[in-house]
């Protein structure tokens, strides 16, 4: 587990604030609670070893576990509610280890540091005595954090994907990739859907079935696999690699690392997702962490959350 400079009490308070906002749902994650576990296969491209020597990018097809989810903390949330959607991929390596990529339908993140994230979460919590949150608290946070406001504006342009298979998923953190020849560069992953992007308005999405994203994916997988290209956006000198809210220019080169084919929804999805952890710091040789404080705090937060949900709390 990476060492985070963030004080442990801050990380605990973040998890606690998320749990308070979600309400009591024993055994579920406090965010990204409504998920769907699938199986798939990743095929690395011929270009991938030029970027990283990580084994899943250099060899044979790799079995993968894929979890799609709604970032909301309520496991029964309606699929039409505007929010971030996520795609977490676990590459199952031949040595018994694994490597994960976590990606979201909206690029970047709401906060640059764990302390900022805690401030944003607390702005949504009920005020003591009033029973509800201060209606001005979130606007006040966004006014003081332009990068956070930009993230919300990007979300509102893509409020509800029409399908889990029809949105780009951006892995917000930068990692340092070391190639077979020893050269290193920073990059950010993104999964690009073969089916193209499609989004619904909140009004249209709200009229659909509460779990229409699952039903849509079930229908799609009855006739074939769902494919995503895995691309890596390469940083140029001077691009920030420790700020999850700072996007790099779209003109940065993209390298195709491979192709992910999602083949089936797991018939044991509900039990699978309870025992599985997806952690962006779970990686292999050839991939190193950046100094991003949000990235470095994730493992500790996930460990607290996993301990709680595995105890049925």
């Amino acid at each position: 587990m990476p060492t985070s400079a963030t004080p442990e009490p801050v990380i605990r308070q973040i998890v606690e604030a998320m749990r308070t906002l979600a309400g009591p749902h024993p055994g579920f994650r406090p965010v990204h609670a409504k998920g769907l576990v699938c199986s798939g296969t990743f095929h690395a491209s011929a270009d991938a070893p030029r970027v990283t020597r990580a084994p899943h990018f250099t060899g044979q097809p790799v079995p993968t576990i894929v979890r799609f989810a709604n970032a909301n903390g309520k496991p029964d949330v309606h699929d039409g509610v505007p929010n971030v959607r996520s795609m977490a991929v676990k590459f199952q390596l031949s040595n018994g280890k694994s490597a994960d990529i976590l990606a979201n339908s909206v690029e970047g993140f709401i906060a640059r540091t764990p302390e900022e994230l805690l401030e944003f979460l607390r702005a949504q919590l009920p005020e003591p005595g009033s029973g509800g949150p201060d209606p001005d608290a979130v606007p006040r946070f966004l006014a003081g954090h332009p990068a956070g406001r930009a993230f919300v504006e990007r979300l509102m342009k893509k409020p509800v994907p029409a399908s889990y298979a029809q949105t780009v998923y951006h892995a917000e953190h930068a990692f340092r990739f070391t190639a077979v020849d020893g050269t290193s560069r920073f990059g950010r992953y993104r999964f690009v859907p073969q089916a193209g992007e499609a989004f619904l308005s909140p009004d249209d999405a709200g009229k659909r079935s509460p779990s229409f994203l699952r039903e849509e994916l079930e229908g799609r997988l009855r006739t074939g696999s769902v494919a995503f290209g895995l691309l890596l956006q390469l940083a140029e000198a001077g691009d920030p690699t420790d700020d999850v809210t700072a996007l790099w220019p779209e003109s940065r080169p993209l390298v195709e690392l491979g192709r992910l084919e999602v083949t089936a929804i797991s018939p044991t999805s509900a039990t699978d997702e309870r025992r599985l952890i997806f952690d962006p710091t779970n990686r292999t040789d050839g991939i190193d962490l950046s100094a991003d404080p949000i990235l470095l705090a994730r493992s500790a937060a996930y460990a607290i959350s996993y301990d709680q949900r595995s105890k049925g709390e």
Partner: protein
Amino acid sequence: MKGGVFQSAWPRAVIPSPASPYTAGLDGDHGARAAAAAIPGAPPDLRALPPGCAFAPRCAYAEERCTSGVPPEHRVAVDHTTRCVRVADGSPWASAAP
């Protein structure tokens, strides 16, 4: 089991692991923590495998249906399949009487 896969899972799923619960969750461990028991007897002759499940002649839990044909594949979890009929029945080895 001629040419078939009896059980498909990553080693950590079928062999006890000293990993922490967090690491186990990361690597997709199924929480298998019971001690692994050796299967008695000699492995079968690969040139003349027995009918049905190749483990049946040495398995303390084998039944007639284990030798009457190749058991169908049963999915235990997203990353774990088996052809053991006892697992498919929901009868974990640990609780089954020999």
